[in-house]
């Protein structure tokens, strides 16, 4: 059965249909949550919370065609909620100033997965959420705005800011390690 049909069945309380829907989406959601939260255990909690909420509130989903986008929204918001709760209990590491040197490109450095990983960790959860929604899940910025409940202009500015931070982090990581030949600022 196609996805809208499954959604329609699940909306009417069909657990089997919900199971099939979730099995098709869980890996993608889990990966997105891990990218946002950078913690597999928290990501697991966030995805479970999102899927439970999805089951509970599925009858209210107007358009079955938007099931995936709706599920993404629930997952991202569950991630941000968990991150907020976690912040109450830990001492945050202060981020570097974002007004770093203007870096137009980082060609050559991108092959280093660890450097980008470290750059992602330096973003806050909201910045990572925008990056993940747009680049990992492939959402247009208008959908990112709808998912996060913020204006499109805010999405653009935050994305610009997040990418700027990542470029600085990548560049910093590159120059400090000099492991990659040709890793120079364009």
């Amino acid at each position, binding site marked *: 059965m196609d996805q809208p049909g499954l959604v329609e069945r699940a909306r*009417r*309380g*069909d*657990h089997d249909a*919900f*199971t099939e829907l*979730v*099995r098709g989406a*869980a*890996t993608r959601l*889990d*990966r*997105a949550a*891990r*990218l946002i939260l950078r913690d*597999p255990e928290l990501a*697991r909690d966030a*995805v*479970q919370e*999102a*899927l*439970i*909420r999805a*089951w*509970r*509130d*599925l*009858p*209210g*989903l*107007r358009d079955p065609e938007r099931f995936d986008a*709706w599920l993404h*929204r*629930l997952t*991202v*918001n*569950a991630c*941000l*909620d968990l991150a*907020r*709760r976690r912040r*109450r*209990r830990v001492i945050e590491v202060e981020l570097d100033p974002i007004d770093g040197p203007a870096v137009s*490109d*980082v*060609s050559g450095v*991108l092959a280093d*997965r660890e450097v*980008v990983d470290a750059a*992602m960790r330096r973003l806050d959860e909201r910045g990572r959420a925008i*990056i*993940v929604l747009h*680049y*990992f899940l*492939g959402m247009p910025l208008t959908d990112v705005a709808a998912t996060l*409940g913020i204006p499109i202009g805010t999405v653009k500015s935050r994305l610009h800011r997040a*990418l700027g931070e*990542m*470029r600085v982090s*990548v560049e910093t990581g590159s120059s400090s390690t000099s492991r990659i030949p040709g890793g120079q600022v364009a």
Partner: protein
Amino acid sequence: MTTPSRLERNLAGILDDLSAGPTPGYLDDLFLRTGRMRQRPAWTFPERWLPMSDITRPRAYAFAPPWRTIAVALVVLALLVGAAFVYVGSRQQRVPAPFGPAGNGLIPYVSAGDLFVGDPVTGSTRLLVGGPEDDAAPSFSPDGTRVAFIRDVPGAGAGPRPVDLYVVRQDGSDLRRITSAPIQDLVAATWTPDGRHLAVVHPADITNTGSPPTNQLYLLDATGSQPPIRLAAAAGLDSIVFRPTDGGEILFRALVAGQYGLFVMNVDGTNVRTLREPNVPTHFDQHLDGLTYSPDGARIFYQSYVSGTDGTGGGCCQLWVMNADGTDQHQFVQDPAAPNGWQGEPAISPDGKWIAFDSLINDGPTPGVAIVRADGTGPVIRTGPELTSVAHWLWSPDSSKILMMPSEGGNGSAYLLDPAGGPWTNVAWTSDIDLDWQRLAP
């Protein structure tokens, strides 16, 4: 014009690489949980079943004066505050009836696992219960002096999340746990009209994963000092509503031979009567949900499964109404804007004049909450912003506003809607989805 940097061009692939991992191994546990869970659990909307009442008035907080360093002024201020407390205390003797219209008080809400109360008029807020614990679902007692809430029990692992129930005074003092042991898989919780107990429903045996579970209805002493009183147990027992105006009967839904029915019993658990014969299977778990009495206790509004007229087997749900004795069951209204849409979640205004309900338009966005006269006459009014998903709402105690919160995950600001369809506003704070509103003596 800008072009994507190499970082942007390669980011998707790198993120894909970074996030690579095994298929999540927790899905079976998750499905076990959702398999035992109704869609739209009733306990998250206790205010739909039990109007709150109150004997207090909102405290008028004095702004800190800029000349507070002057000792004489401090003395004067202390005297004024003392006098205000005496005045407010004298007003707390007024006790409204537990059902019907009342004055608007504070709005409790949850933010990052802590409980707060906010004044919808001034926008001021204050912490009610803080700390590292995760608290949720605050609900004012019928006399408005206390707030009940649930607290997650940490370290429980997979499966239904255990919770404890707590009661705290509205000023944040006298915090008491009223459960002697954590409750696994809480199904419903609501104050009794006299405010002496909390009625809770939970499975009798959570290790029995068979379907359906037998749920028990208990009364927990709101002070935590008396042992629980067991009222009833039934397969699938979930939604519970106390009947106005004396709270002497409890309306509940339960399963018989795997099919949902609607029943009522005396408040001591005796004299169980059938109001709606069980004839709809559990696949349609919103059938006979959304239960609410009219403030005079004469009628019951509810969601009903409807049989298909074209051989398709029917579906759920429409908004129906019946007399309190089960007679005259019929569809309440048919929203002309949503002739085939899902309708339910009725909330009747405390003055008994209006019904707010969910009327979904399948082929497009739904323009707000639907409102119609309680006698079913007149046009269907739409109020509030466009709804893109499920929203929860309740009436203000004085029936002048509707507090509405979209349920799309994450925090947001609840809406204050004009039932007449006029402009709406947002409360001054952000919160999770739990909704309640303290009632004051009129």
